[in-house]
């Protein structure tokens, strides 16, 4: 073989091999198949009612049909422009709903009821449900999503996979599993052994013993927000204890474990870099933040956001936020006892569980 040709061939082959990894890059540069900016949600501000609002908008076109069905006490079926099948109920007696529930197991359809809807026990609905009136569910039923224009009541051991929004009150009986967003414009009430993830309402009551939380420690003032609160902070390296009945007038930043003994009061916010234990009858006017586990209560009053980066346990009689100043309680895992009231948001990223009061 001609040596020049051999060298040229070698250079060509090596060049080709070096260029090979660049071929997909050149193709992408030319075709721009993935050149749009990363998707940043500009309008959705993390609103818990987002799905409920979208669903309501989605159903707007069916409003005249629903009105007609309600007026005549009839039912109607059809298909939405996107191919989704629906049933509109102008009356919703148990037999009729039972029939639709059985049909749903084979051929799921979206249900829109213009009247009160009473669902029989052990039914499964894999499409969203709209109830123009009260929504009442029997026990051991399974739902995908429910939008109720009035109260929504789930019986024992119900399951909801995506979301529920009630314009009125929302109540879940013992043992319900709420695996998505639960919201109400008035009240959310959960009973023992319910599990939850994200909930929002002006008032969230855990169990029937919510009156426990109304008592709380005396003499707690209206919460100032961080903008107006005294911004001085007490910074401490290592573990720290606030003694029984002690009043702390500044913010606390503790870079160790923190133990606040019963009856103490902190007129500011509290942060601990490790575990935090808050005993009986403590009041905190600002936020409570722990970089690890937190145990609150019983009978505490916390005004600001409550955040635990690992686990959070809230005992009976504790109140977080107020109706006027709602707040957020959040942790990956939350265990909350019956008799707790949260005004605002209660958000367990991984698992939230209601335990019966002792």
């Amino acid at each position, binding site marked *: 073989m001609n040596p020049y040709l051999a060298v040229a061939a070698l250079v060509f082959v090596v060049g080709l091999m070096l260029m090979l990894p660049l071929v997909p890059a050149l193709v992408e540069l030319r075709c721009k198949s993935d050149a749009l900016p990363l998707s940043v949600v500009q309008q959705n501000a993390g609103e818990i009612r987002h799905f409920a609002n979208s669903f309501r908008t989605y159903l707007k076109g069916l409003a005249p049909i629903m009105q007609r069905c309600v007026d005549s006490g009839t039912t109607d079926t059809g298909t939405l422009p996107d191919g989704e099948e629906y049933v509109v109920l102008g009356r919703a007696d148990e037999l009729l709903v039972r029939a639709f529930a059985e049909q749903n197991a084979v051929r799921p359809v979206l249900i829109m009821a213009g009247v009160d809807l009473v669902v029989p026990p052990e039914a499964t609905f894999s499409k969203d449900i709209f109830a123009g009136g009260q929504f009442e569910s029997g026990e051991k039923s399974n739902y995908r999503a429910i939008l109720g224009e009035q109260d929504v009541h789930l019986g024992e051991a119900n399951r909801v996979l995506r979301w529920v929004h009630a314009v009125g009150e929302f109540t879940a009986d013992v043992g319900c599993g709420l695996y998505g967003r639960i919201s109400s414009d008035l009240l959310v009430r959960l009973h023992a052994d319910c599990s939850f993830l994200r909930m929002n309402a002006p008032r969230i009551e855990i169990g029937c013993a919510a009156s426990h939380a109304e008592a709380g420690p005396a003499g707690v003032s209206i919460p100032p927000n961080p903008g107006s609160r005294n*911004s001085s902070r007490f910074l401490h*390296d290592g573990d720290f204890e606030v003694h029984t009945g002690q009043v702390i007038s500044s913010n606390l930043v503790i870079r160790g474990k923190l133990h606040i003994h019963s009856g103490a009061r902190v007129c500011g*916010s509290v942060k601990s870099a490790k575990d935090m234990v808050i005993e009986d009858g403590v009041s905190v006017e600002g936020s409570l933040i722990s970089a690890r586990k937190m145990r609150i209560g019983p009978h505490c009053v916390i005004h600001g956001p409550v955040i635990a980066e690992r686990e959070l346990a809230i005992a009976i009689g504790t109140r977080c936020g107020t109706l006027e100043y709602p707040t957020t309680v959040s942790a990956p895992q939350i265990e909350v006892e019956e008799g707790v009231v949260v005004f605002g*948001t209660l958000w367990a990223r991984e698992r939230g569980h209601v335990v019966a009061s002792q």
Partner: protein
Amino acid sequence: MIYVLYAIVFVICIYTGRHYFFTLNRLFGFQRHPYIDIDTADWPPVTVLVAAHNEEKVIANVLSALMTVKYPEDKMLVVPVNDRSTDRTREIIDQFVEEFPGRIRPFHRTAGKGGKAAALKDAMELVDTEVILIFDADYIPGAGLIKQLVAPFFDLEVGGVMGRVVPLNAGTNLLTRLLDLERSGGYQVDQQARMNLRLVPQHGGTVAGVRLSALREIGGWNENSLTEDTDLTYRLLLNGWKTAYQNRSECYEEVPENWPVRIKQIMRWAKGHNQAMVTYSLRLLLGKHRATLRERIDGTLLLGVYVMAPVTLVGWALALGVFYQGVAPLHGVIALLSLTAYAALGNLAAFFEIAAASRLDGTCKRICLLPFLILGFAVSIFSASRAAVSQVSDLVTGAEFHWDKTERFRKVL
């Protein structure tokens, strides 16, 4: 010479390991987003500062966006800091002031020292809220962003907050596409890993916030700093304050669309970073303050990122020198240097980080552009080295730094 080379190899190995550590943490470690769930609260009053110097192309976008965010109107004041603009910036701002009475209070600065820090320092006379947010004029905040950036301030340990920057003009050309990948790696992996590991997330000076009491405690904005964000990060840290990074608080920005603008940007960042390194590194590493050991180490490494460019170049030169000298025992070191330098620049550590970030972002084909990043790295390494050399020569000649504003590419509305 041999020992210098050993030292350089050692340092490069540390930075390579750091890239891997951050990426693996981001992929498999516990992810910290402690404040992102705060969606209901008694929200504090907030002042939003918008730094603007000749921003007629973009200022209307940011002000429009800020007027539609979901934050109590009576608790949010927007202060456009019009820093000696000579274009229509003032006129546009004043139009918004008329359109939204009581919600925008402009600060028109007509004289004074140049630079963002100096402008922000002067604008502080209009600020009386505990929480201050800062945006550059080319940013477009989404509806929920203000609440997300304010939420960490409920933690009294947090002095500064930083959100994530996402290029809006990512698809314009090769440069913007590479910057899109770089930003992805820098925020999605680097910053979030620092947040996860309780290290030192960097305050970026935009899509960011600072607590007024913390700012006052550290002496306010440092107008002598070339990068006020880096300076702020370290002064907060040295005074016992944390900077929180909110990876899900994303905001669009505009990235440079041509190489000269990009080079100027890198050089300014490099000079500012190096300035902070000289000022704070020894104090951070060895001084008596409240930073933890891990913060001391990470903070020092972070301060050194831009100076690593000339160090790497010197390492390559030394490696070639000793290779041609034929010093046999060093062959292993040269091999190691080649490997780690390649790793730091090439297809291993940094590339791994960016590839992981792209995966986390859920993007697909843009990852194909990864080989071209070598071009971006080459430009960065030479620009940062040039900045370091010019910084030293400025020090010798006493020349003052000239502030270069980053050019905008958006069409005027």
